[in-house]
Every structure is written in C-alpha cells, then in structure tokens.
C-alpha cells in the first residue's frame, strides 16, 4: 500500500513537471502544445549529447547531474522560445486549432529530427543515479528517488510562486484572459509569452534529464506518452491552474499505481481514464479549476 503510494508519487512528479509547462502554455495562449512532450525528449538528448561529447559514461555523480540539468534546461528553454517564435507566434490571431496543427507538426519534426541525428535505437543515458534502496514505513525508497522528488518539488514550488504571486505572474494571467486588454495595461505580450515558453520548456527539459538519469534509457519517441499523460494531468488539475497541474500529476501517478495493482497492468489506463471521465462529469472544472460564471 505505502509502496504503491510512493511509486505513484515518483511517476507523478515526472508527470507534474511536464504538466506544469503544459498547463502554463495552455493557460496563456490556449494551445494544446503537442510538442511539449518532445521538449522533454529533447532535454534528455541534450544531456546525452553533452555528456557523450565529453566522453562521460556510467557516471553517478549528483553534482554533475545538476550541471547537466541546468545546461539542458537553458537549451530546451531557448528551443522552446524558438519554436514559439517560428511556429506559434505568427498564428496567434488564427483559429486556435490551427496552432494545434503546427504543434503536431513541430512534434513530428522534433521526433524524427532526433531520430535522424541519434538513430532510432534507444540510448543509455551516461549518468546513472545510484539506486540502492532502503526500507521505511514499509516502502522501498532509494536515495535517487528522494533526490528526484526534491528537485521536482523545488522547481515546481518556485514556479508556482512566480505565477501566482508576482507582477509577472499577474501579467501572464492577464494575457491568458485578454491579451489586448493586457497590452493596454502595458504588458509586453511577446516577451511574457516567450518567458512562459522558456520556463515551461526548461521544466520539461529538466524532467527529461532526470528521467534519463533515473531510468537510464532515452529514445526519440519517449516524449509521446508522457506528453499525453501530462495533458491529462493538467486537465485533472484544472487546466491553467498550476497547483492543479502538480496535484493532477501526482494524482494521475497514484491512479496508475493503484490501477495496475488492482486491475493488472493491461487495465491500468482504462482505470485511470475511466476514473478521470467520471470525475470530470461530476466536477467539470477539474480539481482546482475555478468555475467561471459567465455574465449574460
């Protein structure tokens, strides 16, 4: 039981990290950024590339991991900004689903671009977190899991604080609600949106590196499923709400963990999605999403 919760928490933190960027981007420009999962994949490959370039393999050092983490975050952040600039910004005034299509296009491009460069085979990530475990409260916990959860939690809390409490965060929410109105308040819409893409992509990149180091293998399609899951998590949490995204990520992790324990792995997703559908019909705005009363 405790073990299931702990397992759920680990997966959940990955979902949450990716969901956060998903939710931010969605929140601000109403874009279901299908390429977001691929940014996660890029993060892992940036880490892989840098480390391989320095001939590093089979490392276990945590400081080195942090350095790579930072580097990948900056790189994926910039890539995210670049993608927004090239593929999304020109379409800001177009129908919302149009951007969805470019997002899918970007996703294909990233996936198969990486495939061309690194090949279709999975690669082993050069840094490996030490994974010997110990037992507490009836669950088996490893040091690397703790490191992981701590890094994820810190990243998320810092971010959530920025968005919910600061002037920039207020500007983000204002753009989400009415970009023209936000401009009239003096908000530099282009810059704030670029910033959101930077932060969101950096978080996804961080998640990618952490996944590489924790699980050990990366491949060009690794972003696809987690992208879907992150989207789901973001929605469960109440899309656009950052604490919701985190909570949604963890909840989804738990659902999966319990789902496979109770119904078997093959029915896990059926359980998770079934629960989700039921939950949303009863609470149509997600966990933390506020009901917007529309004025007539």
């Amino acid at each position, binding site marked *: 039981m405790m073990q299931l919760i702990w397992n759920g928490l680990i997966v959940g933190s990955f979902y949450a990290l990716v969901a956060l960027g998903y939710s931010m981007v969605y929140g601000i420009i109403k874009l279901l950024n299908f390429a977001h999962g691929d940014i996660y994949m890029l993060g892992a490959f940036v880490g892989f590339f840098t480390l391989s370039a320095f001939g590093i393999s089979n490392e276990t050092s945590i400081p080195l991991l942090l350095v790579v983490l930072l580097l990948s975050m900056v790189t994926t952040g910039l890539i995210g900004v670049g993608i927004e600039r090239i593929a999304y910004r020109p379409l800001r005034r177009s129908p919302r689903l149009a951007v969805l299509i470019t997002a899918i296009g970007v996703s294909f491009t990233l996936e198969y671009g990486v495939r061309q460069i690194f090949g279709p085979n999975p690669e082993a990530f050069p840094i490996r977190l030490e994974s010997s475990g110990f037992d507490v409260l009836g669950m088996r916990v490893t040091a690397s899991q703790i490191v992981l959860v701590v890094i994820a939690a810190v990243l998320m809390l810092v971010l959530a604080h920025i968005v919910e409490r600061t*002037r920039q965060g*207020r*500007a983000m*929410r*204002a753009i989400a*609600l*009415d970009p*023209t*109105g*936000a*401009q*009239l*308040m*003096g*908000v*530099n*819409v282009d810059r704030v949106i670029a910033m959101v893409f930077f932060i969101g992509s950096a978080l996804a990149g961080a998640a990618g590196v952490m996944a590489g180091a924790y699980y050990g293998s990366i491949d060009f399609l690794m972003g696809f499923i987690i992208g879907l899951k992150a989207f789901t998590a973001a929605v469960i949490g109440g899309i656009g709400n950052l604490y919701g995204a985190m909570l949604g990520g963890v909840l989804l992790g738990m659902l999966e963990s319990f789902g496979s324990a109770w119904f078997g792995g093959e029915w896990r997703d059926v359980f998770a999605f079934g629960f989700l559908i039921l939950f949303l019909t009863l609470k149509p705005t997600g966990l933390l999403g*506020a009901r*917007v*009363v*529309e*004025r007539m």
Partner: protein
Amino acid sequence: MATTLEVRDADVVYGRVHALRELSFTVGDGEIVCLLGNNGAGKSTTMNMLSGLVRPRSGSVTWQGMDLTTAKPWDIVAAGLIHVPEGRRIFSTMTVHENLLLGGYTVRDQKAIASRLDEVYAMMPRLAERRAQQGGTLSGGEQQMVAIGRALIGGPKLLLLDEPSMGLAPLVVKQVMEIIAAVNAAGTTVLLVEQNARAALKIAHRAYVVETGSATLEGPAAELAKDPRVIDAYLGG
C-alpha cells in the same frame, strides 16, 4: 496651450472597411478634448490607433515627440498614455483588486501604487466593497468603474476614455464626469469619446465631431453645444 497630441491625415483600413479617412486633430497639454460621432464613425478606431492596437496605413500620429504609429502598445503605456477601452476588458477571473494592480503594471514605485489604490477605493466605494470579487461577475456598471480605476492607477499623462458612461446609472455618470474633471484638474490631459454628448460637452474644453472617419467640425465645447448641427444630431432638441 502646447499641443501634446497631434494626429495628421491618419487613414485606417480594416479589410475593405475604410474606418478613418485623413483624420486630423490635436489635443493640447492639460485639455479635455471630446470626440463626438455616430456609431461606426471611427471614434474607437481612433483610440485604438493612439494606443497602438491598430496601425494607420498612412498619416502621422505623434504624442510628446513619440511616434505612435510605430511604437508598441506596451511602450506607449509605459510612456503614460493610458486607454480605457470600449467594452471594458476586465480580466474576468481576477479579483477587482488584482485588476486594479494590473493597472499599475508599468509603475515601479510601489508607494505611488498604494496611494493611488487608496484614492480609487475612496472615489468608488463600491469597488472597495467588492475588492475580492472576480471581475467577471461584477455588474456592467461596476466593471466600468474598475476599468476607469485601473487606468488611474497607472498614473496617466494622457488618458483616453472610450464611452466611460456606457451602462452607468445617472448618478454614477455624474460622478464619473466629476472624476474626469478632477483628474484633468490635477494635470492629466484627457481625450474623451462619449455618446452622452450633453455630459461630455459640459466638462470638455474642446470637441471634434467625427463623421465617417474624418473630423468635420471643431471648436470649443461650449460653442459646439450651441451649434444647431450638433444639437440636432447629438443632443436632441
């Protein structure tokens, strides 16, 4: 009075709609200038052009030496030209207080924001009552108050008001006009678009009549209020 805002021969085109045709007018420093005109005459378009939301195809628009035809809206706001748009544009899921705070987005001086907030709440007690309510759930008139209050917090040098009295109760219209006059007296230049011409002309120094995208009449407000053409079209007998 020194001219601060000068619009010369501005043309704005939306697709095939020619909204502004060689529109020219000026606003002097410290003035209240009112634009009158029928629906669709191009008043809101003018306002949007000044705040950088819409770019003229030709003509020049300068304010305090700043070229408004190329400046970005946020730079224009940062320079002190603040626009209270038609349709209010309240941030619906943000509270009244947050809406007001956003009005001070470009203001670095936290103390100034705090004291202006107090002033706004004092001027419009209804907002103080509703400070934690979501903007989108306010009544139409309450939203209008937020929109005006929000602009004041930005500390405008030139305030653009697009139909500020729309949807306000008569008593509040009077208050709003008083507020505008007071803000102006404190040194802010005001450009006002109003359908309630009677109330607007009372506080304005000068006025223009805009018809199909061009200024057709101009003069001191008091004189225009007596002009039969204006009475006929905008004031009623």
